[in-house]
């Protein structure tokens, strides 16, 4: 019986995501957002979510729709605001009102902690952030001539990532800078769902695969009209 990871609709691709889940969302600098999956997640409407996403707000992402819908309890990110200086985003308003929990990490720590979860490493030392407010209260240790901060892995229940092409094994390719956080998030989440531009009926050649299908549970071919 052949592996079949494709789901016919975005709704089916996000089915089963439940209240309290930790959701990882790929995308950075305008590329790699799984926006159709995020829209389907908003329609599904689970509550009390923790989002693991690099930017709490990006003008090309629709992360903010989850926040505006009141579905999000906590955001773990490296940028809790966009570069937009006009007014307050939905996130910023909730943050101002103390209605959303926030954990800000240096971007390298953010992604290394995700990679660590996928790689079976519960904690690691990093030089990043030592002596800054972001390391306040964290364990530190000196190795050689430098000081380091102990950081913990960040695991997810679900990763919603964007890629270019998938095959039936769930192998993925990415366009240019599209991969960013996607591969690490797919390894760190119990359920990884990929929104892709296209589906290849033949296997993606071994040397072209950028993320093994072992890490990908469901595939949704994005609706180009959306």
């Amino acid at each position, binding site marked *: 019986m052949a592996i079949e990871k494709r789901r016919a609709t975005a709704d089916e691709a996000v089915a089963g995501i439940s209240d309290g889940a930790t959701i990882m969302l790929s995308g950075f600098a305008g590329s790699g957002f799984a926006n159709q999956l995020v829209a389907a997640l908003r329609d599904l409407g689970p509550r009390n979510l923790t989002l693991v996403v690099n930017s709490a707000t990006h003008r090309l992402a629709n992360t903010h729709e989850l926040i505006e819908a009141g579905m999000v309890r906590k955001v773990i990110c490296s940028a809790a605001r966009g570069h937009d200086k006009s007014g307050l985003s939905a996130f910023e308003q909730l943050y101002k009102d103390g209605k959303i929990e926030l954990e*800000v990490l240096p971007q390298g720590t953010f*992604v290394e902690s995700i990679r660590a979860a996928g790689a079976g490493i519960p904690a690691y030392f990093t030089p990043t952030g030592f002596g*800054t407010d972001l390391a306040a209260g964290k364990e530190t240790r000196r190795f050689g001539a430098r000081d380091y901060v102990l950081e913990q892995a960040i695991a997810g229940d679900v990763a919603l990532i964007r890629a270019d092409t998938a095959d039936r094994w769930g192998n993925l390719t990415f366009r*240019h800078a599209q991969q960013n956080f996607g591969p690490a998030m797919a390894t760190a989440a119990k359920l990884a769902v990929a929104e892709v531009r296209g589906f290849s009926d033949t296997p993606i050649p071994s040397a072209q695969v950028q993320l093994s299908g072992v890490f990908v549970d469901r595939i949704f071919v994005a609706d180009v009209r959306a």
Partner: protein
Amino acid sequence: MKPLNRLQMAWRAAQDIADGMVVNLGLGMPVNVSDYVAHDFDVVIQSENGIIGVGPLASANAADPDLVDAGSRRVTLRAGSTIIDSAASFAMIRGGHIDVTILGAFEVAANGDLANWDNRIPDKGPLVGGAMDLAASAQAVWVLMEHNTRKGAPRLLERCTLPLTAVHCVKRIYTDIAVISVEPEGFLVHQILPGISRDALQARTGAKLAFAPDCSDLAAPAIALPEI
């Protein structure tokens, strides 16, 4: 002589980039540095989102929404480039594989401490991005910033007053009126804008300055700022 404008500051920093260097350029003023690197140099521009070998901005008709740098600018790839994922990109940064990162800053202290992020904008959440990783682990951190705030307060200080990005990391500072290195003993001035005396520079600086024996005039070609 007039203080250097932002592009002239970028030009000045670019003069210190050597052939073969791997360079990361921060958002804002620093990204302009790449425009002034010698054309016959093989300099590799790394961007935190995983591009190794960022080329010039894409023309409008060649712009690709998936070919962006960490500042969401649509860029091109240089020959010999490749693209890695974020985990690998920050492994590269944290592992010390960036020769120089050029960052904007609010404040630099005489011990090399850097403050270039701020979580105190009213009601807005903090934004740190990749600055802490770059500042902590690049082989050299160069700062591009105005010598003083708009209100005239010094940005070069004995100790930073704003939240730190990283400790003991800054090696050089390119301001609109001086080029200064950070030595174990503190700030050392290498170039001053003609017309500004050493005493005047010291008066605009919040920490003790020393002057290099070969301290020279800061000069840059005329570069017009783009109209916005």
